[in-house]
């Protein structure tokens, strides 16, 4: 049991969780504040007979993991802001070709080279819309090391379940902070394995023909079924086509498979929401400060609660509406200029009740920052 208890950085937690989920191939390019993911992978993967590759850039990294996923491996890459920008074309490819993979973005302050060592949560909308064209995406996040572990495993599970890339949107604070982690026992968290086709050799296998439940069993490159994979619109064999019917069907499928399964994907935590008149909504590192404020105010009898989002995309509109039904005020705590605030405003019937409590100067938002903002709109002054 002793070695199950760790006191490590969030980036290392992510590595341990990925291995727990069955990862055995990683390709990446160093960038602060995600570099420790690559460093730990370089050490841990060969120990289990897996492969670590340091590629020439982030474009190559995302492409390499897609290639490795096709031979039947669970794969991941990790990066931060600028590298995440470079990965967008490859991410779009993985969406279109339906290749399971996990892309970690340990966010830093942006745009551009921005604040390499400063925290920020400014890539939330890029995670949603960085890829060109209509598409759906899954993006998950976490505020504690135990949750980083769980959400990383969840990311791999969702990637396999829906044959899609999944983004893990962590941040500098979580990535670099040291905190306690108890590594779950084998089997304690469910691990979803790849669904492979049961079609026999010699029988026509259609890699892009969804089953009745919408899932698409895969076949590893190198095994008996040979097929084409492309980023062009394609038919059930994976062959390029511009047939309007097929194009329409595929675009719908790519979007619906996420939208229709939002419940399976969605993860959140709630604190004191039952009677809360002021609901804080937060995620990632910001949620730590938000929780601190809530607990502090509760002790003084104020009716504050926290909804912590662990899955940002698809956005849980219904959940937010339901949890905020009794709230007089909704305060979104995030380290950007209101990227999730916009979604929250769309989720509730009275968007004017939604306010933003943020910090965008590369300094971690503290409980005091949040309290000051609360005092302001409660008319108490700072």
């Amino acid at each position: 049991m002793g070695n199950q208890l760790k006191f490590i950085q969030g980036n290392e937690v992510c590595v341990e969780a990925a291995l727990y989920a069955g990862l055995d191939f990683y390709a990446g390019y160093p960038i602060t504040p995600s570099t420790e993911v690559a460093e730990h992978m370089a050490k841990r993967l060969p120990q289990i007979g897996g492969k670590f590759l340091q590629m020439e850039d982030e474009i190559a990294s995302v492409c390499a993991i897609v290639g490795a996923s096709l031979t039947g491996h669970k794969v991941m890459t990790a990066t931060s802001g600028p590298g995440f920008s470079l990965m967008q074309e490859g991410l779009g490819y993985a969406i279109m070709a339906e290749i399971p993979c996990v892309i970690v973005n340990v966010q830093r302050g942006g745009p551009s080279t921005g604040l390499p060592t400063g925290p920020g949560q400014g890539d939330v909308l890029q995670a949603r819309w960085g890829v060109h064209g209509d598409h759906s995406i899954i993006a998950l996040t976490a505020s504690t090391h135990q949750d980083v572990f769980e959400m990383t495993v969840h990311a791999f599970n969702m990637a396999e379940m829906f044959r899609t890339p999944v983004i893990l949107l962590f941040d500098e604070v979580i990535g670099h902070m040291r905190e306690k982690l108890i590594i779950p026992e084998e089997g304690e968290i469910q691990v979803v394995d790849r669904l492979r086709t049961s079609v026999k050799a010699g029988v026509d296998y259609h890699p892009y023909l969804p089953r009745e439940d919408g899932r698409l069993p895969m076949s590893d490159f190198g095994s008996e079924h040979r097929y084409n994979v492309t980023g062009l619109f394609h038919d059930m064999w994976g062959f390029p086509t511009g047939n309007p019917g097929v194009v329409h069907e595929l675009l719908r499928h790519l979007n619906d498979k996420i939208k229709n399964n939002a419940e399976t994907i969605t993860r959140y935590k709630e604190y004191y929401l039952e009677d809360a008149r002021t609901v804080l909504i937060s995620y990632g590192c910001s949620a730590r400060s938000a929780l601190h404020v809530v607990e502090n105010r509760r002790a003084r009898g104020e009716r504050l609660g926290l909804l912590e989002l662990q899955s940002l995309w698809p956005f849980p509109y219904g959940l937010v509406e339901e949890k905020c039904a009794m709230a007089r005020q909704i305060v979104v705590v995030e380290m950007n200029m209101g990227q999730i605030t916009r979604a929250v405003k769309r989720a509730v019937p009275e968007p004017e009740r939604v306010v933003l409590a943020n910090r965008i100067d590369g300094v971690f938002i503290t409980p005091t920052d949040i309290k000051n903002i609360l005092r302001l709109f409660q008319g108490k002054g700072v």
Partner: protein
Amino acid sequence: MAVKDYIRERFFPHLWCPGCGHGIVLNSLLRAVEQLGMSKNEIVMVSGIGCSSRISGYVDFHTLHTLHGRALAFATGVKMSKPELNVIVPMGDGDALAIGGNHFIHAARRNIAMTALVMNNRIYGMTGGQYSPLSGYGCQATTSPFGNIDYSFDIAELAKAAGATYVARTTTYHAKQMTEMIRDAVLHDGFSVVEILTQCPTYYGRRNRLGDAAEMMDWYKSHTTPIGSKAKEENPSLIERGVFVQRDKPEYCTEYDKVIEKARGGQA
């Protein structure tokens, strides 16, 4: 197996223009695979974007048609994760050396066992005839209406300098030589590059008044010569054909196996 057993007839006719050299490359490639006697299941073809890259759709291997310029990066993932597969990567000259130039030199530097086939038609065919890094000074293209001022580089020299351990050049006129080179390149245990001069009569040929496909191939015959030939000494403007490099150097996947062994404290 007959050559036609290696193609996906369902997806023919192909999209190439009449006279395009890419079809000749396909033919030579399939003959090479036939000579190798490999099972179709052991071969993965990874390509990028361009007329040349469409070759992967027509062959009955595991085929991965990727992004413009990124084929070698995807291929690196395929090969590293399953080294027993034979990975063949056909690319256009723009695909391999403009947008994909960085991946090209780094794949060569690693000496990872895969075969890069650079189908060099000196133009961007798929997008309608813009100049490529191989077009050459003075050429005509839609984006060089007053004559190109970009110099080209020598793919074989570049591959060699970057660390490729098998480097050869041929043309669509020399189809038999092409087959032999592709066969040897696939057998080679390291990063192999075969540059194939191939005609794009539709854009490069027409704009530069080089005649039809047959005339362009005739040009390959008259303007190329075996490496180190006397003809080259007499006429340095001739393009050399043949194998420039063929040497042994530890292969990347094999080297990584040693990393695994070390990481496990000596037990593989």
